[in-house]
């Protein structure tokens, strides 16, 4: 059969989605170039070129991903998952990184195994949940998907990388949600986690516990479920303080600074204050592309990775911010549509999980630059500098497009 151009485009599944992703990535490289325009030259200056190389690699990976039938992928999923878990174990032994052990160096390339683990976990959840005709409703029926997430979650927490660990929770919740698990079941599942977070204050945790108990009374799940949920909430509330004390000091500071950036203006609060000053001084029209003084004079930290959106705010102003936000929102809406229209349970779940993960990255990354979210170090999809994240993003996009193609 002769393959003409139309076929090639059809093979991409959703060419418009790819075009949007490429536009975002090119804009991202532009911002990375701008981030490198500083008065004291540093490694950031050449980062845009490296990102360009990574983009080319990513496009190749995307093309390969679109060629893989979902059935094959479903078959390979356990092996991919096992491989990613091994890498996560390996990074704990031989990994490197500034504050955490999150990087693996292979043949001169640095790679974050957590990125692969996210992809593998999404695949495994999609396989576990997508095969079913009826959604599971019982709490204890969910032990398999929960276990599939808890293993990489704990390994990533051990690095420790709080931001990535959070993404595993997002993956679990979004996959269950999309598979049709009743919302109350999800509520029961995550309630101990909320207890853990609220455990710092006995009063706030007490209110939460009452809410959980009232919920259990009204919805009347099985006795075993209710007892397990109540006990695990109690345990999480009690464990909150000891667990908090086990967090690395820099992670504690980052969480506290989220509550009040001024407690440590030269340390952990520095990032947030400088980011807000940069964005605020951008005004409506911005200081001009490449010209932001906060960035130029190195007041803005991590300006090419975690805080790239602060550069957007400082240099392109509110107008630039809105353009970027609308582009990202449009892109996510399109991914969501692929998930919604897919007739294939496995692919639909994959697409929705990627929607949820990228959405979470967007909310947390952009929210942190304006102080709505704690500084967790999650990159902005397509925009932030970072090779392995860009690669997995495009691989994920490839799977989304394959899903669209197989619909």
């Amino acid at each position, binding site marked *: 059969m002769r393959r003409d151009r139309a076929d090639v485009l059809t093979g991409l599944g959703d060419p418009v989605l790819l075009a949007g992703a490429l536009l975002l990535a090119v804009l991202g490289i532009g911002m990375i170039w701008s981030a490198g325009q500083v*008065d*004291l030259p540093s490694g950031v200056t050449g980062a845009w070129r490296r990102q360009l190389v990574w983009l080319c690699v990513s496009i190749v990976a995307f093309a390969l991903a679109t060629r893989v039938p979902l059935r094959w992928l479903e078959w390979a999923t356990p092996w991919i998952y096992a491989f990613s878990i091994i890498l996560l174990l390996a990074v704990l032994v031989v990994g490197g990184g500034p504050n955490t052990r999150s990087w693996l160096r292979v043949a001169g390339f640095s790679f974050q195994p957590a990125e692969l683990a996210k992809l593998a976990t999404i695949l495994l959840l999609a396989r576990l949940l997508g095969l079913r*005709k*009826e*959604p599971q409703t019982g709490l204890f029926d969910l032990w398999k998907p929960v276990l599939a997430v808890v293993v990489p979650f704990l390994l990533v927490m051990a690095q420790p990388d709080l931001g990535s660990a959070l993404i595993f929770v997002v993956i679990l919740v979004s996959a269950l*949600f*999309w598979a*049709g698990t009743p919302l109350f079941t999800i509520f029961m599942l995550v309630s101990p986690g909320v207890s853990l977070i609220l455990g710092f204050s006995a009063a706030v945790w007490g209110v939460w516990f009452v809410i959980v108990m009232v919920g259990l009374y009204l919805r009347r799940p099985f006795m075993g479920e209710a007892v397990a949920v109540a006990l695990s909430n109690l345990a999480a509330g009690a464990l909150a303080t000891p667990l908090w004390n086990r967090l690395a000091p820099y992670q504690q500071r980052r969480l506290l600074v989220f509550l009040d950036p001024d407690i440590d203006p030269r340390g952990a609060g520095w990032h947030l204050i*400088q980011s*807000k*000053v*940069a*964005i*605020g*001084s*951008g*005004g*409506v029209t911005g200081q001009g592309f490449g010209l932001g*003084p*906060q960035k130029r*004079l*190195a*007041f803005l930290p991590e300006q090419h990775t975690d805080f790239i959106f602060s550069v957007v*705010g400082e240099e392109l*102003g*509110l107008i630039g*911010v*809105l353009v970027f*936000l*609308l582009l990202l*929102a449009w892109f*996510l*809406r399109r991914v*969501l*549509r692929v*998930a*919604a229209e897919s007739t294939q349970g496995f692919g*639909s779940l994959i697409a*929705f999980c990627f*929607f*949820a993960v990228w*959405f979470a990255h*967007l*909310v947390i990354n*952009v*929210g942190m630059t*304006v*102080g*709505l979210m704690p500084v967790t170090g999650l990159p902005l999809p397509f925009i932030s500098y970072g090779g392995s994240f860009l690669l997995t993003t495009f691989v994920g996009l490839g799977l989304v497009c394959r899903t669209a193609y197989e619909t």
Partner: protein
Amino acid sequence: MRGGEAVRLSRVRRARAAAALLVVVILVLAAAFFRLQVLGAGSYELQSRNNRLRPIPIPAARGAVYDRHGELVAESIPGYSLSLLPAPPDSALATLGRLAPYLSLESAGIEAVLERRRRNPQLPVLVRDDLSFEQVAAVEERRPEFRLVVIGTHPRRRYPPGSVVAHVIGYVGEISESELDSDEFVEYEAGRIVGKQGVERSYENELAGVAGTRYVEVNARGSIVREFPSDLARSARPGRDLTLTLDLALQQFTDSIFPEGDRGGVVALDPRTGGVLLLSSYPSFDPNLFVGGITEADWAAIRDDPGRPILNRAAAALYPAGSTWKLVLATLAMRENSVGIDTYMPTSCRGALQFGNRAFRCWRPEGHGPLDLSGAIKESCNVFFYQLGLRIGLDPLLSGVNGLGFNQATGLDIPGEISGRFPQSREWYDQMFGRRGWTESVVLNLSIGQGETEQTLIRMAQFYSSLATGGSPVVPHLLQSEVLEGVRESWALGLPEARRKELVSALVRVVNEPGGTAYWYRPREWTLAGKTGTAQNPHGEPHSWFVGFAPADDPRIVIAAIVENGHPDNRTSRAVPLASQIVSRYLRSEGVPPDRPIEEPVQPPTLGISGGVEGVQ
């Protein structure tokens, strides 16, 4: 199939929920950016500027100060300063350590810089302000090593005459914290150089000029990146130049003849204007030492000197006026008691006056015999003036002396002048000694300038200016300005012109007639009128006083001099020859024609004293 349908339907609802969440979140984020970038733009713009701009003060050159003939008393010379931008203590210390070899900084200097830095951690801290071009160039060549360093030009104060003018010009120094808090220095910032004493202090507003500001852009590590052209930047406006009434040459001449090692002071006024021609105090200090911060060792030397060089003995030290005070009594007696210049007192001097159960002594144990007022002034007879005081009476004496302003300061235009002291009323004695703790005999001591009265040198000079011309005292001032010229009518002698002239003729006899107490040191060319004094004091030998003016008929200079403990016996005074030479020197330099036939040089009889007095001119 039904089940699959149900899943599909619920999936549509779930997709709608997810899309709604997406929209809500994007709206919240957009609102957050709107709040920062539109509502908060102004304040964040300001924060962004404050973040990266550092103001660097440009010091203004202080105005120069000249004497009446245009000789330089104080000037500002260009210099280079080196400052450090605000930085954490350890990096500041490290930079100072690396700078030390280029700036010849000692560890004490580094300590001082760190101390200054602690006081104003947000401002650049001055390291040195007296650097040579070579030192600055050496640092500039190694710029990358010294990224915290700011080099600027820094006008530096210099007092060419040095210690000779110390008590007139004062000195400058870094503004103190208490000064910063005062209203006067509202517009000054920490680290500014201000006048601390003397003319520098009292004419601070005129001399200071207006400091400028420039801005530099720094990065997050505090390194200067570039000069920032800002509409907020201002260049410095130099201060005004001032001309003083002072005669620097006379000041230097006085310095050359003041008895070596002695303490005391000399003041000379122009009796026509009140302009201060001369104001010296010994020992003195070098005001240049204070510029740029006095070193600990220099300050200790000045502070611990038993001669207290910082004390201005011309205006800020009180002395018993001694016999120079007798003219005050004479004035009051002539005014209130119709005493004439030829009036005799009932008891002639036999060396002492019996009052109550006590004998009050005259300086001449063998006595002066009968004397009229003129003769008593000429020979400074205490017994005559005791009786004059008794005739005036305590209450009129107290009120009369206070009416002449002896409880107040002259109003000299430099800080630190203190008021004279004289009891204001009987109540003062009651409070001091108790109602029964004193008797009317206090009049006797007050009559000869002893007891409960002390005056400053300049206050006595001011009083004699009223004897010299017109009967009203001038107001002494150092700045040459017609606004400051004038007399103090309220302190007028209240004598008819003829009476005043009679007193002047008595003062002429003191210096120019054999037997007068200053006869041996009379000037050869001009008629000097004046009065000697021997002030008893608890600190040792009597102080030696002379207050007078010349030429007697048309006075051009009023002089008051004191040498502490300078009258070891009753025949030799160290103040008189000093005053006599200064007066001659001044009148000669001003081209005042001699008013008397020039005598051959006289050889005083016995002089066991120093100071070039042999061969009085």
